[in-house]
């Protein structure tokens, strides 16, 4: 009502027997917080933080319903009765904030491997999954009955564990999806062929789970609206399945998703390359066909975007996952009219999605607390405010400044440039990477609000820093390009990516971009230059350009865009030398093709380097020498060793929180 300018986002809605107080859902996602197949205190603390932050509904990560399902190490084995204790810890922690919490239960089917389970994986048909490349066992009727019994058993565990509802993941990595999809179900019995047959398992599971949980708990079904694979489920079939589920009369809501986790994952947890709200057509189509409330997902990072989708009737609830990973108080801030204070998600996927594939716990590039909720004490204001001087207003420096200022210390940041943001700001000047800049924009805003003083265009040396009489100096001077040995100093057209982004160099004609770091540096600049009309080749000593783009789900997009822009990709090429052949600076780049040991020469007008950088550390050493006793000198980020932004944020937080 009067508390909110949002007409729909904060109006309550009933999901079966459960009243959900607002429309913001923290929907299911992997966390890798489980240990030995059991939920942990970290799970409880993680979900509780989002409940405290105002989420309307929390849906946990999946709980496996059967021992044949163990596709990744840190999966919760819901079929073990021991999980109930952990469930209680989670539900109690979340209920403390008056927030309902549902459990997602699942069997991943053929989208798994036998590596952990040492049992053959089960699927409707013996077709190998494209990611796991393992031929599954086609389940018989007896095994189908076991699957159904497993779901019912886990649903009972969830009921005993205090959950308010159950969600069946039938969408992007599930045996139910396997049955529903014509691409993975080629059975000829009652469970294959017609859609009614393919949906049989789903309806059996719904009936069994409803039987197990009774009518005091909500039951939802998560459906995939478009698998984005050839011969897969598309929106028309998804709509039909939703109708069947509604007609069965046992389900309280429908959640949605897009893509198949083992084939088109990059469209499930889309990075900033994909427009926000891209999957909205799915809940819209389902909602037009059924009366059940429908949850929409897909890069909702801003409350107005969510409100708009609700107002246009595209969904009844909005899944905001990464938005609440980055800022647990997403909903509360919105409700309080402080939407501008939300630490917006970048959809960079570096520390959340990116770490899942690496078997590491879920974190966030912007929010050092994420993944550490159970270990971190609340920020307390220091009884002894200290004077902190930070040199450098990049990601590391600003995080240090923010952490210190939040603890009541007086912080001044000295920055040589006329604005904050450092390399991150620069990286974000490439159009498709613009959202990355929110990292430093968010930091700057929070710093300003916390009372940090910024002095721009203020180069620092030891003397000028110490004149400010600091108790702690944080050196965060970043890194600078290091010119490789093979690039002649006088080759004016061999430039760094930073020269291009800062406008010091404007390459034209034939450009070779050298990718020695394997992340966005080379590919984003290549894309930028191709858009400007250059003929671009990206060359790398590695086996693939942009080697690490895969973990953030940017690789597929890069490949598509490179192809569309005619960007040539060359691999296994080690640059050996450059000779200027023309007075304008153009020349010939010599490579060693290391698999064959042969040399290759490529003529070009410009060479743009994305190569390892070197730390800017002189100030740190100068200060260590000059600082009087009692003045601590610390450093953070690239000036220790050049790495990616998350390292800068974590180190900044670490030194800034302990002056």
């Amino acid at each position, binding site marked *: 009502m009067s508390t909110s300018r949002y007409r729909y986002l904060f109006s309550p809605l009933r999901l079966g027997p459960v009243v959900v107080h607002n429309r913001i859902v923290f929907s299911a996602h992997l966390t890798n917080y489980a240990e030995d197949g059991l939920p942990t205190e970290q799970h409880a603390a993680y979900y509780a933080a989002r409940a405290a932050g105002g989420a309307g509904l929390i849906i946990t990560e999946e709980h496996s319903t059967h021992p044949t399902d163990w596709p990744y190490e840190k999966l919760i084995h819901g079929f073990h009765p021991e999980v109930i204790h952990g469930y209680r810890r989670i539900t109690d922690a979340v209920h403390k904030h008056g927030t309902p919490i549902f459990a997602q239960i699942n069997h991943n089917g053929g989208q798994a491997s036998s590596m952990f389970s040492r049992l053959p994986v089960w699927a409707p048909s013996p077709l190998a999954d494209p990611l796991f490349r393992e031929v599954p066992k086609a389940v018989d009727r007896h095994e189908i009955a076991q699957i159904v019994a497993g779901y019912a058993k886990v649903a009972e565990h969830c009921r005993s564990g205090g959950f308010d509802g159950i969600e069946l993941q039938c969408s992007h990595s599930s045996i139910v999806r396997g049955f529903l999809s014509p691409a993975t179900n080629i059975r000829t019995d009652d469970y294959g062929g017609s859609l009614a047959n393919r949906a049989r398992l789903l309806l059996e599971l719904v009936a069994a789970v409803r039987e197990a949980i009774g009518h005091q708990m909500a039951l939802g079904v998560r459906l995939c609206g478009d698998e984005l694979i050839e011969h897969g489920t598309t929106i028309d079939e998804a709509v039909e399945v939703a109708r069947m589920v509604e007609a069965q009369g046992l389900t309280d809501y429908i959640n949605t998703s897009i893509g198949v986790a083992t084939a088109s994952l990059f469209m499930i947890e889309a990075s900033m390359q994909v427009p926000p709200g891209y999957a909205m057509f799915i809940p819209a189509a389902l909602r037009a066909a059924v009366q059940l409330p429908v949850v929409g997902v897909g890069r909702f990072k801003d409350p*107005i975007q969510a409100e708009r989708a609700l107002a246009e009737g595209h969904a009844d609830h909005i899944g905001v996952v990464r938005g609440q990973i980055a800022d647990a108080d997403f909903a509360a801030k919105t409700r309080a009219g402080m939407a501008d204070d939300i630490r917006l998600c970048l959809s960079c996927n570096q520390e959340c999605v990116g770490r899942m594939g690496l078997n590491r716990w879920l974190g966030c590039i912007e929010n050092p607390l994420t993944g550490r909720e159970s270990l971190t004490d609340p920020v307390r204001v220091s009884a002894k405010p200290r004077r902190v001087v930070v040199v450098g207003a990049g990601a590391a420096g600003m995080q240090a400044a923010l952490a210190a200022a939040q603890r009541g210390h007086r912080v001044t940041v000295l920055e040589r440039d006329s*604005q904050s943001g450092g390399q991150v700001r620069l990286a974000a000047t490439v159009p498709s990477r613009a959202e990355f800049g929110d990292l430093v924009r968010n930091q700057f805003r929070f710093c300003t609000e916390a009372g940090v003083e910024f002095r721009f265009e203020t180069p620092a040396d030891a003397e000028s820093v110490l004149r400010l009489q600091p108790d702690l100096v944080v050196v965060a001077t970043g890194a600078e390009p290091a010119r490789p040995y093979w690039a002649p100093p006088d080759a004016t057209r061999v430039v760094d990516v930073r020269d291009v982004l800062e406008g010091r160099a404007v390459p034209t004609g034939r450009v070779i971009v050298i990718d020695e770091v394997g992340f966005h540096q080379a590919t984003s600049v290549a894309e930028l230059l191709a858009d400007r009309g250059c003929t671009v080749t990206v060359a790398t000593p590695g086996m693939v350009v942009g080697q690490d783009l895969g973990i953030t789900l940017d690789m597929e997009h890069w490949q598509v865009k490179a192809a569309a822009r005619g960007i040539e990709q060359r691999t296994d090429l080690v640059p050996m030398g450059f000779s200027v052949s023309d007075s304008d600076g153009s020349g010939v780049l010599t490579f060693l093709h290391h698999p064959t040991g042969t040399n290759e020469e490529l003529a070009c007008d410009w060479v743009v380097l994305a190569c390892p950088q070197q730390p800017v550390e002189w100030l740190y050493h100068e200060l260590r020498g000059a600082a009087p006793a009692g003045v601590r000198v610390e450093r953070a980020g690239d000036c220790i060793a050049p790495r990616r932004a998350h390292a800068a944020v974590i180190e900044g937080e670490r030194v800034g929180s302990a002056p």
Partner: protein
Amino acid sequence: MIALIPVREGALPLGADEAVAEAGGEAIVAGDGTEVAARHLRTAVRVGLAELGTFAPGAWAAALTAELAAHDVIILPGSADGRDLAPRVSFALERPLLAGATRIGPEGATLVRRGGLVEEIHRSAGPFVATLEPGCRGIEPLTRDAEIRPLSLAPAGAHDAEHLAMMAPDPSTIDLGEAARIIAGGAGLGGPAAFALLREVAAGLGASYGASRVAADLGWVPQDRFIGTTGVTVDPRLYVALGISGAVQHVTGLGTPEHVIAVNLDASAPMMGMADLAIVTDARALLKVLADRLGATDDG
């Protein structure tokens, strides 16, 4: 079911296509310039043209009665003219009116009440007339051209108001959400004086003016001019952003403009990344120049 679409000078009213789609593609287009208007419909399958001249609800209702009596459900768009005509048709046909519907079917309609807080489902025992709220359902354009035929109607007289003239829309008063061209300013403009200039420039460009949240919060512009998260959401064809950094909260309120121009001293502002034309310059100084240029054009 059939849609009745009142048109003026060949221009369709708000919500015309939605009304036709709701009626399943059957429509009667009434007014002046009906054929032109009918060809602009994207959801019509079959259209009857009732060339009745300038809007005159009394006379139109009388003239259309015989033609409409054959249809059980008559759907009018909830536009200004549609809302005015519907009760006259309902009265002439002696049928109930279900006004302000968001969904209309052969048996009845869902109506919004209390300014959109509640809905009522009404069932009608017999034929009825309804108006459909514009924007409530969206449309899926058909690829096939509609079959168009003129209707022969006996003219009817009634005591109606007399149309004197149409007045062109005034971009400065038009609802920002409907504006096709928007020029907006942000904190980078520095103060209320610049927004006075912005209004002039907007007028010169035939555009509506808007602002970012910061500018509205500082009171430089009224709150109803603020585009973004907590303000107005817009969907212009052209968007010119002066001194707006382009925080996501602003950008998500923007819709999908065909063309974007951004002006900012900060070359790395996200708005600059979105723009087709991004110019690094002082937006305030630029605004003065633009005001001069456009003012001079007017004088000449």
